[in-house]
């Protein structure tokens, strides 16, 4: 950004700067070729070239990463502290004595393990429900482009604006009138009201990218339209389905307000249990941080493993929109 050198650079020189070696500019490359190369690598226009600039930028990045990563590291360190250490004045960053006491306390508390099972159950049911409803709907919207489809996708967008607090109570009384009060099914239905619009939106972008010829060939070969969707299109968008599934899962896994309004004891999920630590048992920071770490780490690892796909999913809708 801050480098204003007017000399056209190609990838080779830029990388030479990073490794500290003076890379030879490839002089044999002709001007049009170089232009094409540069078009292929959009990043290049904004990529900083000068070594001093890059050093400053790396220092800035390091500072930002430390500031950004520190809060969660502090949560982890705190979870290994002794109870007295946790609320010591002044606080220390690292534990003076490392212990697993908080983990034993948090996981040993009644209802905590059950809440984990509830969280997993609710998130899985909600993810499946979202996918089963969103895949055909998104396909219908993108492939046939009917007026009803356009109305529907706008309506789905509007549902995103509905504050959960506004529909939580009516939803809870609906569930209890059909005998589903305080069950993972009721909660997962509520979570699906959040993830379904998002899933339809995401799946629509993925279906948009599938060439139409693919199903046309299949239908010519005697496949029904549903058959073509199931046997030809679904396998092609399986990566997109995985991304959508992750988002639906995370939306349910981390949700708190519906869980608070719609569950009592039987189907309570872990976020509600974490929040209850502070009222029911006084301020038990140690156990609270331990439970929060146990609840967060699996999804952080999962997402880091699948990050490429997730980044694609997150940016698809927004950038294309």
């Amino acid at each position, binding site marked *: 950004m801050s480098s204003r050198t007017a000399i056209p650079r190609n990838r080779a020189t830029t990388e030479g700067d990073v490794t500290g070696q003076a890379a030879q500019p490839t002089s044999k490359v002709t001007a049009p070729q170089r232009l094409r190369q*540069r078009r292929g690598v959009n990043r290049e226009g904004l990529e900083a070239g000068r070594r001093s*600039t890059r050093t400053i930028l790396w220092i800035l990045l390091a500072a930002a990463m430390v500031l950004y990563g520190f809060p*969660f590291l502090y949560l982890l360190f705190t979870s290994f502290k002794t109870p007295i250490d946790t609320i010591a004045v002044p606080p220390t960053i690292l534990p003076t004595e490392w212990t697993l006491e908080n983990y034993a306390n948090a996981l040993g508390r009644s209802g905590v393990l059950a809440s984990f099972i509830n969280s997993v159950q609710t998130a899985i049911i909600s993810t499946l429900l979202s996918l089963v409803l969103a895949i055909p709907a998104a396909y219908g919207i993108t492939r046939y482009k009917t007026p009803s489809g356009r109305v529907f996708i706008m309506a789905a967008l509007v549902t995103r604006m509905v*504050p959960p607090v506004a529909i939580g109570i009516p939803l809870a009384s609906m569930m209890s009138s059909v005998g589903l009060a305080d069950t993972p099914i009721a909660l997962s239905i509520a979570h699906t009201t959040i993830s379904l619009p998002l899933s339809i939106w995401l799946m629509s972008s993925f279906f948009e990218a599938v060439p139409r010829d693919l199903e046309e060939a299949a239908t010519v070969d005697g496949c029904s*339209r549903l058959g073509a969707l199931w046997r030809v299109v679904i396998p092609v968008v399986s990566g997109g389905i995985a991304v959508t599934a992750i988002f639906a899962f995370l939306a349910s896994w981390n949700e708190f307000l519906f869980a608070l309004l719609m569950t009592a004891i039987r189907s309570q999920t872990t976020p509600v249990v*974490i929040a209850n630590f502070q009222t029911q048992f006084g301020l038990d920071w140690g156990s609270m*941080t331990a439970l929060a770490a146990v609840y967060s780490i699996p999804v952080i690892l999962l997402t880091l493993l699948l990050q490429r796909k997730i980044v694609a999913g997150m940016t698809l809708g927004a950038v294309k929109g």
Partner: protein
Amino acid sequence: MRISDRRFALYLMTPAALFLAIFVAYPLFRLIADSFFKISPIAGGPRDFVGLQNYVTAFASEAFMGAGWRTLAYTLVVVTLEFALGLGMALLFTALGRSSQVWRTVFLYPLMIAPIVAGLLWKFLMIDNFGLIGTLLHQAGILSNPNQIGWLSDPNIVLFSVAIPDIWLTTSFMCLVLFAGLQNIPGDLIEAARLDGARAPALLFRIILPLLRPVIAVALVVRGIDAARAFDTILIQTNGGPQSASETMSLLIYRTMIRFGDPGLASAMGTIYLLAMLAVAFFAVATIWRPGKDN
């Protein structure tokens, strides 16, 4: 018998549409209907039609108007800071290019953390007496006393403090979306501007930001809607206190419904809140997004 494509598309959409009608539209209808009644919180209690009385009560109540302004202020603070930080990070990652890829991934991690956990974590960092932030600022010589700033206990700044976890959680989203947008800016355009002698600020305000406009609009609208509905992080940090200084609309509605046991009034508040959100969102979409016009 082969049904028409149009009908086939309709059949495909029907299950999802029914689901949203039953579990979103119908509860909304119930909410709006309830807003015209005085309802006893006890199950099976009396339910009297009171017309617009609940709306009159809502608009006359200081708590409701206060919560409305606080929600607006909170949303503006969150979205502005997130946008500034997210754009800064996106430009930094872009300037460093390919070699920063690992760090881009690491930067995503707060997105996976539950808001309730983030709220708890920041409460622990900012809490009076044993909060780390006050202590570190004191040790750095910025504060004369670790408790000089009552992050969560001073009514004048608490609305800003409760916004921090929200900003921390979703700056990554802003950064990710803006970064993707930056990758679509043709490198030649930037080079050409540089050849013409454009300096960094001109490059940013004259070329990059105008080109990113559609992306920025989507990101701001999406995040604005989310921030205006914030509940988890505020509830766990302050429960709306001290003296209601951090009580936003979601919290007020929740408390009116659950703690004060007035579902009718809460429904009226919820209805007004929803209408206001829709109006602001449509206005935002119409003015800054303008789908179609930028292409």
